[in-house]
């Protein structure tokens, strides 16, 4: 949202199409793969537009130091991190304030879906590595992390699926990419538990009227539901494919 109310020349053309040719309510191409990292207890890889993101889960496992364990449930820990080559300008590998904030909201977006009380005195580590970044990397990362948690066999109430809507050239759009994020007017990333209709992440940057907010919020929910279908397919493909991989 570098330019609130800013330059909006070509972001939507006369045919109502966006710079990459998408319709206003169209998602970018999405690909999800499950269980590709050998050492992790669970893992997933997502391509979401130009985002390329790896998620890995270790745990439930022993906690060090011991006094940070909880007697009644597992401690969920999260790290969202960008590889130095993932951005236009090289990113310093030390965690930025942005990465620290996203790590926090990501943890809070995943936590409601996990049966942490089933694993007292343990920790579950979720690591999300952005190998290439585009707009919406936090949503893509959350969606990948939820799949990695399922792949690790952690007990879950529901999956968590995430998607953003926003405002570009005075119009509400679904799934804001990098250019739209920088030159557009608003970005509203959310995460939901799709089967219990609960919001687990919500952030907003940029200006929306009440009406626009309602529309963007509903579009983002519908976008997240589509992401959820792809998450399910990826997990089914992994665990119930005709080739017969191991069952969960």
């Amino acid at each position, binding site marked *: 949202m570098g330019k609130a*109310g800013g330059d909006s020349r070509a972001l939507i053309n006369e045919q109502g199409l966006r710079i990459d040719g998408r319709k206003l309510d169209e998602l970018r191409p999405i690909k999800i793969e499950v269980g590709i990292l050998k050492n992790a207890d669970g893992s997933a890889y997502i391509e979401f537009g130009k985002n390329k993101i790896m998620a890995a889960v270790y745990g439930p496992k022993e906690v060090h130091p011991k006094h940070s364990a909880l007697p009644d449930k597992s401690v*969920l820990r999260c790290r969202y991190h960008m590889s130095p080559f993932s951005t236009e300008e090289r990113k310093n590998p030390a965690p930025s304030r942005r990465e*620290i904030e996203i790590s926090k909201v990501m943890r*809070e977006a995943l936590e409601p879906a996990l049966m942490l009380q089933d694993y007292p005195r343990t920790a579950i580590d979720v690591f999300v590595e952005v190998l290439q970044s585009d707009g919406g990397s936090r949503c893509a990362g959350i969606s990948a992390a939820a799949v990695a948690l399922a792949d690790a066999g952690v007990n879950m109430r529901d999956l968590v699926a995430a998607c953003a809507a926003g405002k570009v050239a005075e119009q509400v759009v679904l799934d804001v990419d990098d250019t739209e994020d920088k030159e557009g007017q608003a970005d509203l990333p959310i995460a939901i538990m799709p089967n219990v209709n609960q919001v687990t992440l919500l952030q907003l*940057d940029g200006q929306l009227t*009440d009406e626009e907010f309602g529309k963007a919020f509903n579009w983002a929910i519908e976008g997240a539901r589509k992401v959820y279908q792809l998450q399910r397919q990826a997990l089914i493909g992994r665990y119930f494919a005709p080739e017969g991989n191991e069952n969960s």
Partner: protein
Amino acid sequence: MSAVKKIIVIEQLKRNQMNELLARGTRLDGRGMLDTRPMTVTPNVIEKAEGSSRVLLGNTEVIAGVKVNVGTPFPDTPDKGLLVVSAEVLPLASPYAEPGPPDESTIELARVTDRGVRESGMIDVGKLVLVEGKHVYAVFVDVSILNADGNLFDAVSAAVVSALLTAKIPKYEVTAEGSITKTEEKIPLPIQTIPAAVTMAKIGDYILVDPDSEEEAVMDARITFVSDDRGNICAGQKGLGGTFSFEQVVFAASTAKLKGDQIREIIKQGVHSAV
């Protein structure tokens, strides 16, 4: 035993008592669900700062100070001044605050406050340029949290906004040789709107405006919306490991606009009384 220590020993008894009260539509301190605590805004408390403001929200006490110097713009926004919001929960503020670099909660607090100011367009950063791509005004707003008794988000936001509203910054000029000199003249910042942050807690199925620290100790989730004075929502943030239903999100957004108008009035009065 101090106020905050009491919070810690909140037991099931109190949690039950809180839920019973909420079921009857009231709160431990007698407020209604959508009532904020008294807020006082006192600008110009730090004469050495270019702008400053002390905000009391119930027992929560914060001071924001503005310092301005000349900096280099970011390469991708050569035509914009710099605005940096930082916060520190001083160890004076609570028995749980530790000295040291800000933790994730304080970083979130500063970044959400920053986004509210930035995305509302409160400051016209396009007017803070001296030489495009080379020299711009750099506006630093630092917040020292002196006593933490719940809802730091709204207190910090009000302090930052009122400090910026009352700031008088040195005017810099470009010399003939292209270097920058500080003049004696003081100018206000280019203000375009007054953003107001409103934070709500979810406890069980209830939504409460402006939670105090006893309510924060038992809340399931937190949601903040910032609105401007032109009817827009311009920043939002959900926090903690609980959830909101879709209806609760929409309710929270519209509540934030209503209550935001009240907070904006308090800020304006505080600023007006200071001039």
